């Protein structure tokens, strides 16, 4: 309802929030705490203005708000950098390399038919045999997550996470805009196996084109799903990538992480055992059931089969989406993308604000689950931002420190208080105090956002100490 009001009037007035609270029969303070926690919900009328994206990829490509223009957070058109600050359908042109997942949308429903020919337990076995891991960034085995929820022997909830709030990542938008049918087949398969009592597809509030494409595909293929999923749009916020935060957002609560245990598969959405899977993960199910688990395993590594969608942007000749086998070295991505825009590639931010910077000497490292480099780099959700000879590594590290400070949900002390101080110390060249600050933010924070936040700063300090002294 907050989202609908923002769409209607452009902002959320106090009266509107009070009215929504009355409509929903919830206390005003609870509506207020939720409404004031999303970056995309303005609490004052927006002025007519030209928006300029100030995400890292756009800044590296010269974006800077001029007079009369207002800088916005990342608008996720990183392959178009510097991009105009509004959403548009992901262009087919920017799918630079496709593999099985990004091959043109299938014309039939062979994967779904195969899944439906199997009983739930047999279909679950196929998922387990495929070795499919979650593509949101944590790479948890999909079958184990599903088994965890089904073992509760209660009705389960299925949430597809398409919030995609990480600057430099646009793969879920691309799938939904360009391969919606393959996603829909994956979703139908997941709904067949899990038989969820509730199914929610949660999208980024700014991803209007992806939502329109998904809704058109749903409308055109009625009957392929047991029932239509609830499609929800959020109000932004990187922390919604954390699944318990997403669950709180769907419940209409303030988007902050919950303590674990209980894990979502035990008690998630409204206390129901809940499976949260990423859009890319769900889309992979189509491949698993079309070709079978053996064929799926032929790509990638034994421990991490399949492909990964890499969102490549920044100072690179051919930015866009690259589908590559799991285990591909980072450097091979750059070779495929035509190298630096000017001069040489001097660094890459691998894994975005939760990842880390790597110098060219580390580009042999493969895209695999787990830490790619101890200072921070991770394959994560596949976002890589390239810095070339014209780029300022120090400024990029400062931008990531500022992003993580701003995106803290504010719940726990180390992340809320510590991450802004990381940015301050870095900006003031006070490197001596950073070691302990980075450690306390990384170790003591409640959720993954805070725990991963030190990566970009720690890695930049490790590889380029001279820039920060």
């Amino acid at each position: 309802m907050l989202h609908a009001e923002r769409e209607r009037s452009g902002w959320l007035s106090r009266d509107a929030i009070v009215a929504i609270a009355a409509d929903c029969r919830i206390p005003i303070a609870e509506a207020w705490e939720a409404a004031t926690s999303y970056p995309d919900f303005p609490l004052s009328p927006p002025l007519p203005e030209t928006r300029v994206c100030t995400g890292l990829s756009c800044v590296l490509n010269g974006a800077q708000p001029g007079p009369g223009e207002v800088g916005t957070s990342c608008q996720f058109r990183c392959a178009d950098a510097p991009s105009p600050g509004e959403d548009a359908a992901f262009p087919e042109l920017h799918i630079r390399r496709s593999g099985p997942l990004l091959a043109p949308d299938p014309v039939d429903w062979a994967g779904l038919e195969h899944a439906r020919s199997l009983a739930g337990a047999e279909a679950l076995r196929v998922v387990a045999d495929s070795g499919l891991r979650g593509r949101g960034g944590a790479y948890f085995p999909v079958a184990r997550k599903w088994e965890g929820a089904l073992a509760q022997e209660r009705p389960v909830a299925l949430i597809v996470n398409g919030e995609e709030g990480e600057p430099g990542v646009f793969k879920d938008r691309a799938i939904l805009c360009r391969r919606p049918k393959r996603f829909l087949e994956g979703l139908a398969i997941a709904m067949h196996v899990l038989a969820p009592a509730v199914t929610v597809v949660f999208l980024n509030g700014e991803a209007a084109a992806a939502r329109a494409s998904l809704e058109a595909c749903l409308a055109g293929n009625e009957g392929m799903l047991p029932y239509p999923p609830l499609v929800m749009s959020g109000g932004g916020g990187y922390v919604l990538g954390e699944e318990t935060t997403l669950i709180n957002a769907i419940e209409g609560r303030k988007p902050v992480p919950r303590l674990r245990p209980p894990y979502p598969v035990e008690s998630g959405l409204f206390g129901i055992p809940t499976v949260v899977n990423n859009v890319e993960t769900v889309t992979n199910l189509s491949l698993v059931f079309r070709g079978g688990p053996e064929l799926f395993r032929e790509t990638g590594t034994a421990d991490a089969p399949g492909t990964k969608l890499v969102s490549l942007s920044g100072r690179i000749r051919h930015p866009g989406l690259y589908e590559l086998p799991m285990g591909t070295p980072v450097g091979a991505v750059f070779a495929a993308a035509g190298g630096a825009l000017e001069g040489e590639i001097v660094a890459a931010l691998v894994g975005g604000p939760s990842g880390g910077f790597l110098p060219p000497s580390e580009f042999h490292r493969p895209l695999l689950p787990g830490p790619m480099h101890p200072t921070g780099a991770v394959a994560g959700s596949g976002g890589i931002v390239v810095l070339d000879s014209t780029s300022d590594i120090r400024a990029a590290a400062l931008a990531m420190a500022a992003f993580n400070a701003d995106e803290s949900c504010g719940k726990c002390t180390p992340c809320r208080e510590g991450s802004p101080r990381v940015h301050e110390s870095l900006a003031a060249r006070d490197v001596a105090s950073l070691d302990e600050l980075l450690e306390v933010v990384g170790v003591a924070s409640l959720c993954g956002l805070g725990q991963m936040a030190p990566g970009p700063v720690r890695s930049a300090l490790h590889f380029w100490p001279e820039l920060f002294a």
Partner: protein
Amino acid sequence: MTLPAVLIDGAGVVASGSLLDAVLAAGIDLPHLCKDDNLPPIGACRTCLVEADGRIVASCSVPAASVKEVNTSSERAIRLRGAVLALTAAMIAPGPGGGGPLGGTARATIEAHPVAGAVFARSTGESVDTTNPFFSFHEEECILCARCVTACQALQHISAIGMSGRARETRVTPGAGATFRDSICTSCGSCVAACPTTALRPKMELSP
């Protein structure tokens, strides 16, 4: 039936409840600013860090039975607790005593534990809300532990107050950015009773 045991600083302790419960039951002092026996675990203050099976965890949100061995006084645990307390200490402006029944908790905890490094001044806000007849709210003493809000929402089921905003803009806020008087506050006093600082202060001395 044998109850599971957890080894805390070398001594076997019955593993019931949270790890923090087990540590405190063993008579070991550990900071805990957002734990409230009347409330579900909040996990916001992150001061109850211990080393459990080699990993640093906030002991309030880990079931004791899920852990084998705990070290509450490893060099790393002590150092990190001090670092979190330093971040917390920076939020409390030096001021008068008073406050609710637990009002001295945060300050006493900070004084009892080594707080490393420089303490920076950073207050949540400067507003003072005196509109409630029985208590006042002083933002500059607030450490955002969320005990008052959790007491209001999860114990009393009133929800007169909430945590508004995010990142450094997070605040304890009545209603839709209202004052206590203009909110649905019933003056039950649960928030004042839960506050570990002097942010929420009773207005009158209680007489017997």
